[in-house]
């Protein structure tokens, strides 16, 4: 069995002033997975990524990347990783191609190969025609794409992305999703933090929810969503109703004549709900979740007061 892409064992970090970054985190990211790391602001996501990329020094605990100890074999561990940080962190006065080529050199690629790989990854992210342009002139979305290209230039086995689609328009976001899916399909393990829960639900096959520097829940996305305590379905009716019908044990509200909101518990059967709707003579024209299911799980775990992941 191959070593997990990431294995954290009791990792803790406290910043000067006493703020807790991480509080004894145990985390396993299986090799080849698409792993989402979620949590409210200040939960410890960026600290965790900083720790993996050695920008943050842990106070205690052990971190391994593909079996390489980040303390004892940092060079071997870093060779496996590509990192896309949350904030722009390249020299904006340099041309786009130079930024990627230089990063390739840092990972030990010979100049000719570095040039070739820079061209390939810039094409991949749609920046092939901007190779000689100074990075300063790129839009926010293009700067993020440049950072993705830079992270991919040495063909890493593990790609770490800290909110890669924040502030990016919808089309660019979907293009990034497609690229990440393609990379993951090719065997690259992806660790992603995001504020967009629909993004995490759409992309990630494994999730961990972090808060206060601790992992609250970790597992396969489907398993976590099955464990939701309740969900609210919004039913669009084919004909109007004037009061909420009784569909016990589900709770029903009628925000307007054409819409019903039905709260279902974890054990409630959605087939039985439709049976009761039919018995009440109601015809359903459309159905959707009121909240993204992952959002519901997130709020359930971290509390309504901290809605921003």
């Amino acid at each position, binding site marked *: 069995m191959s070593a997990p892409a990431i294995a954290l064992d009791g990792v803790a970090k406290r*910043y000067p002033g006493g703020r807790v970054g991480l509080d004894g985190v145990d985390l396993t990211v299986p090799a080849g997975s698409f792993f989402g790391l979620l949590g409210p602001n200040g939960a410890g996501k960026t*600290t965790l990524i*900083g720790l993996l*990329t*050695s*920008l*943050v*020094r842990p106070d205690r605990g052990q971190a391994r990347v593909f079996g390489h100890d980040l303390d004892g074999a*940092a*060079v*071997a561990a*870093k*060779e496996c*990783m590509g*990192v896309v*940080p949350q*904030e*722009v*962190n*390249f*020299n*904006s*006065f*340099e041309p786009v191609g*130079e930024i990627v*080529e*230089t*990063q*390739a*050199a*840092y*990972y*030990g*690629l*010979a*100049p000719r190969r*570095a040039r070739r790989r820079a061209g390939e990854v810039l094409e991949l992210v749609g920046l092939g025609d901007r190779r000689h342009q100074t990075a300063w002139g790129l839009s926010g979305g293009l700067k993020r794409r440049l950072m993705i290209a*830079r992270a991919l230039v040495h063909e890493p086995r593990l790609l770490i992305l800290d909110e890669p689609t924040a502030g990016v328009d919808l089309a660019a976001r979907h293009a990034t999703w497609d690229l990440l899916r393609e990379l993951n399909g090719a065997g690259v393990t992806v660790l992603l933090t995001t504020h967009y829960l629909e993004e995490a639900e759409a992309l990630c096959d494994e999730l961990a929810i972090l808060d206060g520097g601790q992992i609250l829940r970790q597992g396969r996305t489907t398993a976590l969503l099955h464990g939701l305590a309740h969900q609210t379905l919004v039913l669009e009716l084919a004909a109007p109703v004037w009061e909420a019908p009784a569909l016990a044990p589900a709770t029903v509200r009628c925000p307007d004549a054409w819409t019903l909101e039905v709260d279902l518990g974890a054990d409630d059967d959605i087939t039985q709900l439709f049976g009761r709707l039919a018995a009440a003579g109601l015809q359903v024209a459309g159905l959707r979740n009121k909240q993204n299911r992952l959002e519901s799980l997130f709020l359930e775990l971290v509390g309504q007061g901290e809605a921003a992941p």
Partner: protein
Amino acid sequence: MRRQRYWYAYRGLVVKQTRRFARAWVQNLLPSVVTAALFMIIFGHLVGREIAGMGGVPYADFILPGLILLAVVTNAYNNVTLAFYGARLQRHIEELLVAPLPAWLIVAGFATGGVLRGLLAGALVMLVAVPFTSLQVHHPAATLGIAVLSALLFALAGLINGLFARSFDHTSVIATFVLTPLIYLGGLFYPVARLDEPWQSLAAANPMHYMIAGFRHGLLGTGAFAGTTTFAILAAATVAVGGLAWWLVARGVRIRA
């Protein structure tokens, strides 16, 4: 295999640093040349005509080695200070920190960039001085050795400054208030031997004095030169400052949370 990868990484870092100062050559290289040219015109040519030769050579020739060394060390120092501080400020130091690079390689890459700029500035000053002096390099190996070691020493010191600087003001404090006075008082414009006590003893404690004296001897073939002492002081200081710079970067002081 790893050695080759490190070589490419080092090369990449040096190319980046060289491009950085070459892109803004007017800002980075020209001031030293203009300053040296003005010194040569005013003190070497206009005022120097009224001064009898010093140390057995015309005054313009006498001050030239100090002016070259001033350009070498200030350029080496400033280059690394600003490059490292800028990398911290813009956070592209993270490109290096996340990459599989040992601390010594990061220090070596920045220092080499500083040495290259220092030597280039020194060479340009030397070139500008040609019309004003009867320049002949008497001991090329000693001249080059002192220039390279001085540039390396101050490039490494500049890295430490860049690590600790909290603002752009902090990047120029040491160069302005420590480095330049030490060079000016280290015998740039006069032979230290002519000073009265206690100034002569104080000058002997100034490391720049040995560098200037050694460089002057290498360039002009004049003056007393304790070669072993000069090189030993320079090498010891370089190893000490380089060791400190490596330790600070390896520990992640001011660059890792």
